[in-house]
């Protein structure tokens, strides 16, 4: 596999890889500048293939449906009563696709300045989070503090989606917590970003747990002392 993986670039650009091959290729992409450049170039060529297919127009209603759906998603951000949580479809499978594709593009930028291991770790973590968001069986839990929502799959893997959290100030980091009654366990650090952000939690949550976020000094802490700035309803 390793020796032939460069050959997957054309197949990746044309979307003919199966799930396992995509996974392997994306992992490879994180560490191969040559493939990233080639993929960028092939994607431009596939855009030409897309143009070659241009023909019929969509129905005029499609535009309105897209905008309405986008608006509805923003409204989901408003905390909902938890009993409604199963009713709200939040993030479809395509969100995961978007994340991975954007990631493939974004990673290249990350790598220019960042450490490769960090980039790979981030890729792995985002991909696990993407799998949760893509799970049709996942449910949404409202936030009682902060803007966004928590998405939890049947195995208790959880992703926090945040809408209005600024990047952490210099020298600071956001820290995730899983709170089981009085017990709070650290569940990962993240820097935050403008616009929508989403981050997967280390570990799993149980029914009744609360997920929270605090702002801490870089490196994070082991024991929760600061007041949470984001907190979910009980899972």
């Amino acid at each position, binding site marked *: 596999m390793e020796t032939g993986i460069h*050959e997957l*670039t*054309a*197949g990746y*650009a*044309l*979307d*003919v890889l*199966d799930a396992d*091959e995509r996974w392997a290729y994306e992992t490879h992409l994180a560490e191969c500048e040559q493939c*990233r450049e080639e993929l*960028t170039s*092939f*994607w*431009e*060529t*596939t*855009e*030409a*293939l*897309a*143009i*070659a*297919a*241009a*023909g*019929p*127009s*969509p*129905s*005029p209603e*499609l*535009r309105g449906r*897209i*905008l309405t*759906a*986008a*608006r509805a*998603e*923003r409204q989901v951000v408003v905390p909902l009563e938890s009993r409604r949580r199963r009713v709200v479809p939040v*993030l*479809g*499978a*395509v*969100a995961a*696709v*978007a*994340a991975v*594709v*954007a*990631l493939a*593009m*974004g990673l*290249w*930028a990350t790598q220019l300045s960042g450490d490769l291991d960090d980039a790979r770790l981030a890729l792995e973590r985002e991909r696990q989070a993407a799998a949760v968001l893509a799970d049709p069986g996942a449910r949404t839990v409202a936030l009682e503090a902060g803007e966004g929502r928590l998405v939890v799959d049947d195995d208790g893997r959880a992703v926090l989606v945040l809408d209005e959290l600024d990047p952490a100030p210099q020298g600071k980091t956001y820290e995730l917590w899983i709170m089981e009654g009085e017990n709070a366990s650290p569940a990962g650090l993240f820097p935050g*970003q*403008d*616009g*929508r*952000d989403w981050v997967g939690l280390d570990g799993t949550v149980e029914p009744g747990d609360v997920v929270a976020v605090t702002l801490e000094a870089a490196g994070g802490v082991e024991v929760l002392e600061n007041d949470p700035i984001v907190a979910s309803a009980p899972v």
Partner: protein
Amino acid sequence: MEAPPATVLAFPAQPSWPMRKQHAHLSDEALVAQVARGEEDALAELYDRVGRIAYGLAVRVVRDDRLAEDAVQEGFLAVWRSAASFRAERAKASTWILTLVHRRAVDLVRREERRRTEPLGDELPGSAHESEPTDEAAWLRFERERVQTALKLLPDVQREALELAYYGGFSQSELAQRLGVPLGTIKSRMFSGLVRLRELLDESTQEGSWKPEFTS
């Protein structure tokens, strides 16, 4: 020479899609940045620019109007959700959007498995529905012809591999099976096809006053 009526604009009017003046001058990439801040108007403008190509592509892949609209809608919602992670220095926004819509269309068609039970026959892209909508932007018509001409100049086996791969929704092992050739052959045809198509497109761009018809 008569002066054109004052109401005639250089752009084809889209009555139900009012042009948003405040966005018209922005690049696609700048629009994505605005989408990342939650501006619906910017998403609407991106749709007006790329939506039609995205839909044509989706129809070609899924062969179903409703499914194609689903793929486009989900692709644009993906743009809405993940615009913040887009990096303009690595790809054009339109490329990104079309990549998302294509991936979604492929996943939809694989799930439906509709293509697997259909014979390939004369349904090969190029011979299927060639509707010529009259309101199509001139640049799009020109670009499409340019690409289609470049495709025709490809060796047959490369063109076949690219078209089946990109428009067919097949996996590469399915392609190998259908064409009765080893997987390695398919891989190399797709690779050489993309490389050659890229060269042909570059050449036709450089020619500048390139014309779709051959003059002999």
